[in-house]
């Protein structure tokens, strides 16, 4: 961390985001969103569908520009610091004609035009560390969904970015694989101390992983509340049994469903 540690890894300041719908009407996706994520912090965005979680994430990948306000990476405009960011999608999005290793190396190939032996060694080490060592030369369809997503994470890590953006990365996985992947991600985060911004629909997942959970509300998307998670690190399966865990998930549910407890109970049961 050469930059002053006080510089936030990511910041959104007074961001408004409007889209034109098909009939020309203006749709407000984000309303006056301000958020700063500290270096090394793990922050989750939760909220109902259409609350602009993914839009917020796309702002910091430079895929869209804020209509009003500004987005910054490590204190500089998004475009200037894009190579400090790695992105993980909801689907593994591996190119099915490339081996796992070549998929992981894709960002290197795009950035530098070619792939050296040192890059290959790095890719293999990454795959090794996520338990995919023996699958480096396999094609994506030969791997299970969880393994494919791990390869997707390796691809995001290959350039050793400071910031990892994850857009519902485990949303397409079954519940068991999903839990395993959470702990896998915590292990990676513990080893490498990246800044992670994690979009999810799952409240327990957000609480288990994060330092802070940003709760958003829909139409237009804005930050409803930011809930700090006081659970000790490293987090394990046992963390989920702690009273603080229950308190946090409950607090977040209450924010999302309002104070209407009846609805909250139904929501929790779902």
């Amino acid at each position: 961390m050469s930059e002053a540690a006080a510089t936030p890894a990511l910041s959104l300041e007074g961001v408004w985001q409007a889209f034109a719908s098909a009939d020309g009407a203006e749709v407000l996706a984000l309303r006056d969103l301000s958020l700063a994520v500290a270096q090394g912090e793990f922050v989750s965005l939760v909220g109902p569908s259409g609350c602009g979680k993914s839009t917020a994430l796309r702002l910091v990948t430079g895929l869209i520009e804020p209509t009003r306000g500004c987005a910054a990476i490590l204190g500089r405009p998004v475009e200037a610091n894009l190579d400090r960011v790695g992105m993980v999608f909801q689907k593994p999005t591996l190119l099915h004609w490339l081996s796992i290793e070549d998929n992981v190396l894709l960002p290197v190939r795009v950035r530098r035009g070619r792939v050296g032996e040192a890059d290959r060694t790095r890719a293999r080490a990454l795959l090794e560390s996520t338990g995919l060592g023996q699958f480096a030369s396999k094609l994506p369809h030969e791997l299970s969904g969880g393994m494919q997503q791990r390869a997707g994470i390796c691809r995001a890590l290959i350039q050793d970015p400071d910031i990892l953006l994850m857009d519902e990365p485990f949303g397409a996985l079954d519940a068991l694989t999903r839990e395993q992947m959470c702990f896998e991600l915590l292990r990676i985060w513990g080893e490498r101390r990246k800044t992670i911004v994690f979009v999810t629909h799952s409240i327990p997942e957000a609480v288990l992983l994060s330092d802070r959970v940003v709760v958003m509300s829909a139409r237009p998307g804005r930050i409803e509340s930011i809930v700090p998670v006081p659970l000790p690190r490293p987090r394990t399966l046992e963390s989920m049994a702690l009273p603080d865990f229950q308190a946090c998930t409950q607090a977040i549910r209450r924010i999302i469903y309002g104070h209407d407890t009846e609805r909250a109970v139904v929501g929790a049961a779902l």
Partner: protein
Amino acid sequence: MDMTPSVPSSAQPSDQPRLLPPLSRSARWWRAWQGVAIPALTLVALVLLWEGAVRVFGIPNYLLPAPTRVLAELDKLGVRLVPNIGATLLTVLAGFLASVVISLPLAVAIASSPFVARAVYPLLLITQSTPIIAIAPILVVMLGTGQLSRATITFLIAFFPLLVSMVTGLLSTPREAVELSRVLRTSFLQDLWLIRLPASVPFVFSGLKVAISLSVIGAVVAEFVTANKGLGYLITQSTAFFNVPLAFGSVILLSIMGVLLFQSIVLVERIFFPWAVQSERITRE
């Protein structure tokens, strides 16, 4: 966290009793070869039926010659068939290659720019709505009676389906792959070369398979209009003299040529793009 994928194994674990009776040798042979054996046997049966019918009902040669008679007629020409087969093959390949070489950049242009797409599509539709056989004589006047006319006619007949599948392929890149490409900030050429072209390979190959079959048709049409040798030329000449067996022989040679060319495209796909064959199978499932 044990996530090794299940590897289909034919070996029987030693501690597991065998429940099913072992397959007999002939059953195993049948399983391995039925894909070849069934069509081959059907073909042989049909040829025998044809031969038998011609002989039993005494059908005259100029209506339906027996397979043996067709073979005899081809045998009579012998080595003189070779330049005719060669001429047709040359026209087929020239038209086919022209289709590939012209369709690919055109498809990239259409897929990358809505402007080009809107400008070019109506023209393409006009060329496709015009019966090529109708403009073939005009082309001969314009381009002469040589190979160029024949290749052009073949190209005009073969290129359109190829172009359409290439465009479809380039536009059907999965949405997530497009997003990935944008996040990685690929250049136009990188996006094309690393992501969109490989993603379109299965489509390109189905287009190539249609195009090679149409090229054979195109070459025969061209030879009907202008040629002094070739299998299409043989057909017009032999029917003019009521040598129907030779016409049949030429048609059979054309079919064999078509099948072999089609199969060579299949082979190229299997050898160089095994993942494309794989992904076709996966999407079909």
